[in-house]
């Protein structure tokens, strides 16, 4: 059995990569993909602890999370599509209407 620490390290690394992607990349598609990465890091955590404590709730939670993430991505992609149509751009820095 893989020790818990290994899995946690994997999820941390995944989360860090995702966070870096969200902060640093300018392409909005890649930002979205990075967010998915962070979400999956969280899911790995849920599953890992679930098996560690031998409690099924965590796994069920992870399944829900994946399902909701799919729906969320659908919404996000729809927004992105419209945005691209209006602005002719996928750069996050071009989307800055909501400010002082």
């Amino acid at each position, binding site marked *: 059995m893989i020790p818990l620490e290994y899995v946690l390290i994997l999820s941390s690394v995944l989360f860090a990569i995702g966070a870096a992607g969200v*902060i*640093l990349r300018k392409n909005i598609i890649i930002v979205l993909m990075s967010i998915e990465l962070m979400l999956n890091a969280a899911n790995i955590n849920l599953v890992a602890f679930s098996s560690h404590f031998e409690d099924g709730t965590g796994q069920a939670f992870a399944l829900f999370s994946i399902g909701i993430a799919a729906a969320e991505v659908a919404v996000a992609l729809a927004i992105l599509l419209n945005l691209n149509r209006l602005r002719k751009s996928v750069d996050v*820095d071009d989307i*800055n209407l909501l*400010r*002082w």
Partner: protein
Amino acid sequence: MDILEYAWLIPVFPLLAFVIVGFLGSKMKDKGGLVAVLGVGTGMVLALWTAYELLTTGRVVESSMEWVVLSTDFKLEMGMYLDNVAAMMLIVVSFIAFLVVVYSLGYMHDQGPRRHRYFTEICLFVGVMLGLILANNFFQMFLFWELVGLCSYLLIGFWYERPAAARAAKKAFLVTRVGDVMFMIGLFILFTELHTLNYELVWSALDTADKSLMAFAAFFLFGGAIGKSAQFPLHDWLPDAMEGPTTVSALIHAATMVNAGVYLVARSFPIIATSAEVSLFVGAIGGVTAFIAATMALCAPKIKGVLAYSTVSQLGYMILGLGAGAFLWHHGHHVEASIAFGAGLFHLMNHAFFKGQLFLGAGAVIHYVHTEELKQMGGLGKYMKVSMITMLISCLSIAGIPPLSGFWSKDEVLAVTFEAGDAGLTFMVLWVLGVLTAFMTAFYMFRMWFMVFGGKPNEGTRHATEHGGHKHEAPFTMLLPLILLAALAFGSGLSLFIGDGFFGSIYFEHAHVMSIGERLTEVFTSPLTYVSIVAAVSGIVLAYFSFYKTKVSAEKVVAKGFPKAMHQLLLDRYKFPVAYDKIGYVGVYGFSLLLDKFDRYVIDGIVNAISAFLVKSGGVVRKLQTGFVQSYTTLLLIGVSLIVILLYVVGALR
């Protein structure tokens, strides 16, 4: 049928007339005058009947119902308390009110549609004044007290388009309000201490009540009387109140409403008597008021001014009598105190009649010459015989010439003050003031009478007789009240000799019955009587020589030096109006300005500072909203990381 059970109908009839005249009067030909006469007249018949029943049987009837019940401890009631004092007040008020309303038919004849408002307000006044008398508890009295104050305000401001009248109405309302607030404080003290405001319950609870609290209650209740009865130092509204129609001055500001203060003192007599200091204070205020008001009357330029000061002065006598009574009671002289109590009320009754007559007479004079300035009158005796003679009777009466009514009551007030002087020296001083006042009263009344009816006609008289077209005296509706009141001004003092005599009927717990012979011997063997008669006669003689024979020229006396300064001071009413204005403008208004500044700069300042801080800081902080999502994310990440590290450091995660 027992009339006493139906006594509550007494104020109902004038109030009914008030409603009818108020709603329908403008459509009537005489603007409601007849309805007013009927309403007030019916009230008078019932009142006289009730009073007769009360005085002949000596019964005391109380009936009441609960009115406002908030808890078992907090109850207000509405009811009637009928005793000898109420009976006397009913006679005075209802009778004079009826005569004044009849007189108004003639006097207000040329006022056109305005008479509607006049008759409405006068009916309301008569109704609530009678209600005040019938009240069986202090709260109900206070309620009607405020209503008569309202009527007084409305009627002083009857000619509201004249700035002086509007000012006078406001002044009367505000100055009496000072007294009303004190009255209210007195009520609060009584209610919290005794849990009742019912007269009889209050009187019977006094023995067990806290003495010092009762002294405060008495002081504040008397404060109400100071305002309403125009006592020093709140007397200055009454001379200004003469801006109203003369009938109003006669009814409200001479014969009835101003007596409400004296009536209040009579009703709170046992409370006042619990404290020697407050009794002394009451007497002192009365004596001082009588004196200074009389000095101001000496040189008042207007006919109604003289009468107004005279009213203040005579009210002072009544208060002096009651104060002396309370003082005597406190010192255990119960029979003498009871006489003093009666003396104050005796003077109230007599004064109401002769002063009402004088005002109505003055009204007839003003109606004739269309001026109030004494200097412009003169020589009117030739044209106004009835007014001249009736006013002469009243002047003699108020001056205190036997056997007219004013003599008996004023003499009695002075006598009881002298008696109270045995218990407290201050009353000796007050007695001296009282005698001096008697002298001045005789002088100023005859100064007025000679200036109006004697001498040669001045421009006002000439104008009226040559161009005015008035060849006749006032109409019959005006002369009848004059004659009836003059008869009472002559004879109301003789009530001393009817039945048990005045002091056998109107008293406080101890009736004092004396036969005619005893009474006469007592009065005419006392040296005090001759002191006051000499004072009165010398006043009249002095007035005769200076204003009729003009042997002594009043103008020369006051031409220079100290007399001139004194004369000016009296014309300025001892600077009281200025002082009121100072208190009003500098004191109250200044304090309000200070509070306004506090509100504007401190309270508003704090509120504004908070909002300004938020607006300013918002201007700075909003720069953080760059619109770049990634910078938000970065900050979020840094923030969450910091929180986690912090929690780790403090050990929450370990």
